[in-house]
């Protein structure tokens, strides 16, 4: 390719020089952690760190997949683009977190046929079954309408931002670096969701009704984010993770601020129970996740030796 960038045609440059590199962004599989210090901090159990990273990664990955379902069908072009951008940020976070999980505990990564070019983070995303996913159920339920999507994103981003702010002090250098970056991104996500929540709640009777319906559908799933899972407790006590119990007050305060501005009361619906005590963090999910994964994973699973 010549030194000059061709501004006249979007296809300019595609046919010169090393063609393969110019076909699309993101088609190479360079290790996303190359350049980072991935040695385990002393006294850290790799399987605890790995599983903890999977939880944060799967939350982001599944939320990104749900948000990207809005591509080409959001209420207007600006929101279409905004939701896709938020999904992309979360996908980037998920990729780094999955790579970190694989480096911390290689035993988590599904075994693929010899010769498969699939990198560990993709193997985790595309070749695990539903029961190996550690995301909370909040992120996997269907989008519903735009109102429910906004409410879910508000609950999720509020919790995640509070966690990420504390995760900047993680003893794991990868998690601390990733958190410092992600805080900036999720700040925009939370503001986006909170402003739309307020706009819809204070809009028409219909838009307010939809926000209230969205809240009824998602609120019972918020508790799962707040309840400390044994893996989170271990990760927190060894200084690599954050105990979600620490963020309850902050999450409550932010949500109360949004509710107050929207003239809505805090919902009182009870937390949704799991199956024999098992919930998303334990690998027990709703049917919605299996359908989501079927769509997300089908191409990769059909071609485990495929090169793109």
């Amino acid at each position, binding site marked *: 390719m010549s030194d000059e960038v061709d501004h006249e045609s979007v296809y300019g440059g595609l046919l010169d020089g090393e063609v393969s*590199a110019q076909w699309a962004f993101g088609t190479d599989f360079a290790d996303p952690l190359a350049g980072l210090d991935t040695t385990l901090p002393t006294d850290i159990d790799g399987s605890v760190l790995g599983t903890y990273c999977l939880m944060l990664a799967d939350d982001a990955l599944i939320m990104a997949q749900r948000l990207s379902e809005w591509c080409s069908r959001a209420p207007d072009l600006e929101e279409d*683009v905004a939701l896709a*951008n938020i999904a992309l*940020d979360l996908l*980037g976070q998920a990729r780094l977190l999955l790579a970190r999980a694989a480096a911390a505990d290689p035993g988590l990564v599904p075994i693929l046929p010899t010769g498969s070019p699939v990198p560990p983070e993709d193997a985790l995303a595309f070749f695990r079954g539903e029961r190996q996913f550690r995301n909370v159920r909040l992120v996997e339920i269907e989008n519903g309408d735009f109102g429910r999507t906004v409410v879910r994103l508000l609950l999720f981003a509020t919790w995640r931002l509070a966690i990420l702010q504390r995760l900047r002090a993680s003893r794991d250098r990868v998690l601390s670096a990733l958190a410092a970056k992600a805080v900036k*991104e999720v700040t925009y996500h939370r503001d986006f969701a909170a402003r739309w929540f307020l706009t819809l709640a204070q809009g028409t009777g219909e838009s307010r009704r939809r926000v209230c319906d969205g809240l009824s559908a998602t609120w019972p799933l918020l508790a799962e984010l707040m309840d400390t899972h044994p893996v989170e407790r271990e990760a927190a006590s060894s200084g690599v993770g954050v105990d979600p119990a620490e963020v309850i007050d902050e999450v409550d305060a932010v949500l109360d601020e949004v509710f107050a501005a929207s003239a809505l009361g805090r919902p009182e619906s009870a937390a949704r129970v799991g199956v024999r005590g098992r919930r998303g963090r334990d690998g027990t999910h709703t049917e919605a996740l299996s359908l989501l994964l079927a769509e997300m994973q089908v191409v990769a699973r059909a071609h485990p030796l495929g090169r793109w």
Partner: protein
Amino acid sequence: MRVTVIAVERARAVAADVVDPEMPMLTLEDLGVLRAVSLDGDTVVVTITPTYSGCPALSAMRDDLVRRLRDAGWSDVRIVVVLEPAWSSDWISPRGRHLLVEHGLSAPGPAPRHEGPVPLTLLAPPRALSCPRCGSADAVLTSEFGSTACRALYRCRGCREPFEHVKEI
């Protein structure tokens, strides 16, 4: 030693001249994405940092750097991606800011810094910006997310044209 210094400077000049794939009016150096260029034996080591975690342009930047350095005679090039310290829009150079405006984009103001919890902003953040086309300060936010994650969309009430603002981060 002297030869090495000159070689590093030459490599640095080549790397610094590579442009951002999504904002090609800016070089990677203008954008603050290029963090370091050094020599490890005969290998040129270029350190870059992504603007956003999911920035899809990163692999294009990597390919462009390798290709340009190879064209300039370095057969061994290693690209290292660092996450820390996290990229800030404050790192866009004065020249970069000038070029953004010249190409119809509004340049970012100072990035927010927080002590303690990040405050919620229920109202669109007041930004001291002006329309890159007509200079009017009377612009309204259309969306915090533009054609890439790093840009917000505005509409100028002076000339009535839309424009993009590179976000503070």
